[in-house]
């Protein structure tokens, strides 16, 4: 079955061009040209992934992203004309998994889409334990003290990647490759923002993280407090 992608962008020419490229690569695309109709289109089309422009008439991309996140864990990839720190970080914090700065190459866009649609490998029944957090990899379940924690697929991948090799320090670049599928250098802020989001869900005190610890100058590692 073709993967379904919703393109939310006010520029019709660009939307059409993105559609051509996506269809070329075997995706099914639907379009929405304004922020206010995005959520409706999302419910109607039920996509596997959303490509979301940050600057939209009506409701802006960040707000749309929050609305979608409120009811779905579907991957959201932002299209940004601004590469300013503040905008990118705000977009990621509102729940977007990844972003592609304009102008982008078709191959780049498709690679980002594919990376987010990457089918989760069928895992053997495996349970990981980091401190008080236990992860049921096959069942996509995370619990903290027997209370279920809801994570997006991306956050789940991030946690599993680090939990599989506890005590190993992952550089941001390693995480970008393992979780986001970047082959070469990309924006390490992706990692920073998503680690923060992940911490806010699984840590007792996100200010003093115990599960995902920062290793200054290098990156992050999973480790129990004990």
């Amino acid at each position, binding site marked *: 079955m073709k993967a379904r992608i919703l393109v939310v962008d006010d*520029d019709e*020419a*660009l939307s059409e*061009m*993105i559609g*051509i*490229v996506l269809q*070329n690569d075997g995706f099914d695309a639907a379009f929405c040209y304004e922020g206010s109709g995005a959520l409706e289109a999302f419910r109607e089309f039920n996509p596997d992934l959303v490509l979301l422009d940050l600057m939209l008439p009506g409701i802006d991309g960040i707000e749309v992203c929050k609305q979608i996140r409120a009811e779905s864990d579907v991957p959201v990839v932002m299209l940004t*004309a*601004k590469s*300013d*720190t503040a905008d990118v970080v705000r977009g990621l914090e509102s729940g977007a998994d990844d972003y592609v700065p*304009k*102008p*982008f*190459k*078709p*191959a780049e*866009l498709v690679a980002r889409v594919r990376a987010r649609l990457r089918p989760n490998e069928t895992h053997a029944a495996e349970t990981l334990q980091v401190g008080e957090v236990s992860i049921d990899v096959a069942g996509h379940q995370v619990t903290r003290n027997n209370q279920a924690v809801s994570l997006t697929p991306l956050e789940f991948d991030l946690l599993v990647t680090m939990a599989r090799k506890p005590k190993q320090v992952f*550089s941001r*670049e390693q995480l970008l490759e393992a979780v986001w599928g970047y082959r*070469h*250098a990309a*924006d*390490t*802020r992706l990692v920073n923002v998503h680690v923060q989001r992940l911490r806010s869900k699984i840590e007792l005190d996100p200010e003093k993280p115990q599960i995902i610890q920062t290793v*200054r*100058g*290098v990156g992050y590692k999973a480790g129990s407090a004990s």
Partner: protein
Amino acid sequence: MSSHTSTGKELVPLDVSVHAKPKRFTIAKLRSWIRRPWIALKLRWQRHLIYRTVISTLLFTTLALLAAGAFLSNQIASTLYDERVSQISKESERGLTQARSILESASTTDRASTQALVNSTLASLEGDGATVVRDFVLMPIAGDQSLYVGPMASGSLTTRVIPQDLAESVAGEQGIYWRSVELGSADQAQPGLVVGTKVLIPPGREYGLYLVYDLSSVQDTLEFINRALSFTGLILLVVVGFVAWSVARTVVRPVADAAYASERIASGDLDRRMKVEGKDEVARLGTAFNHMAQSLQEQITQLNNLSAMQQRFVSDVSHELRTPLTTVRMAAEVIHDAREDFDPLTSRSAELMYNQIERFQHLLNDLLEVSRFDAGVAVLDRESTDLNSIARKVVDTATPVADDYGSIIRLSAPAEGCVAEVDPRRVERIIRNLVLNAVEHGESNPIDITIAENHSAVAVTVRDYGIGMSEEATQHVFDRFWRADPARKRTTGGSGLGLSISMEDTRLHEGRLEAWGKPGVGSVFRLTLPKAEDHEIDSSPLPLEPAISEAILNTVGDSFPLTGEVPKIGYTPLILTSETEEDDDVTDPQNSSSESKKERN
């Protein structure tokens, strides 16, 4: 220096300046000691118009008053004195003549009656009809022994008050003579006048009869007048001083206000205005000043707005261009991918379009970046970063380009890593720009990247062994759109903004980016960054000039001097005289080069 001072005099002064210096120093010190209060006064005199006005007014008024007072006092004194003298001379003449005629016509023949006559005559002379108090002195002229009457004097007088020369005049020709004298004791001297004449007293002996006038009342009057004059003068002086002060103040204060307001405006407080009261000249000054300030403010605000607008415009244009550029780029790529189905011409066109869109996009990115710097919205995103890993990343991305040029990139870095609090994206961009620049100008020779650190800073040098550059060129390589040789064709299609963006990135870190070059030998770019935000860098761990660089390549932790200050860079418009000029010289005009030199100093 101090050892020179003590031995300086015994030694033959080989070097005059060395020995002269301490001596000059002590004299200067002494002089400054004396001068210090004088200088303070002088400063006050020079700085404050009001002091100058009041002091000079007081000085001149005092002089004028003294002159007028002296003149007045003198006039009054001589008039009073003359008047008194003429009065006295009339009275004394009358009295003396009368006394003489009485005495000369006397027919007494014995001592007692003569004495009685003289007594009564003189007594009447003393009191009689004179407006001025007078005393008499009777003194025989020749030393005759057979006198009926001896020397006499009224009051407390003695014959000693009569000056010698007057006595001689009286002894001579018949007549009335007078002299000014001093009466009383030496410490309580009072002015007096002595009038004398020769009289005959029986038995035909010659006497000098003198009337002595006390002029102390005239003196008292004069002293009173002088006191009054001085007092009046003093009051006048105070009044004049006050008037001068208040006039100077009314004039100087608005001037001082204007000066203060100008200073405030010059230092950026554009809203500063002068207070305007009344309609006089001072008010006109205030009004004119405020008017000027107003129009200045309007112009400056307008310029600021224009410049802000222009920056906004550049930024907006870049943003607005991105969306259609994305569409065009994707379309170009789709066409490019399908070019094998086209005829050769269309196929080549598709390639050209694809490549040029790529280049266009780089230019747009750089422009946007520059506009962000100009607008002052670029911010640092510091985090602990290992420069080694950044450099390795840059080497990875630059290797394909270097392969095209036939260069290899060599990285020499401390094994333990080189961590600093920097913005990794910006530092990566700086190093990437330096490396790509080196590859472009490296003439297929190897490129060396060296990383090192010391107590306060980390540094990266990028060296090539290519065409190099002149010393003048090293001062311009960071200028926007600057090209060492306008005749050289662009090969990598860089935007011409790469190095100036690198410089801006370095400046955000408060670091240094320096260039060295020698034509035909190669060039070196050195980036020195502080290890953390508040560290100040005083030296660089790596040398800029390669001569030392090779020798110490393995030593880590050394310090090398930085050149100059943190350069300020902004846009210096570059006027190229001719794009087609073929010589190797730098072709931008003299003024632009001197201007950028100034900026770098």
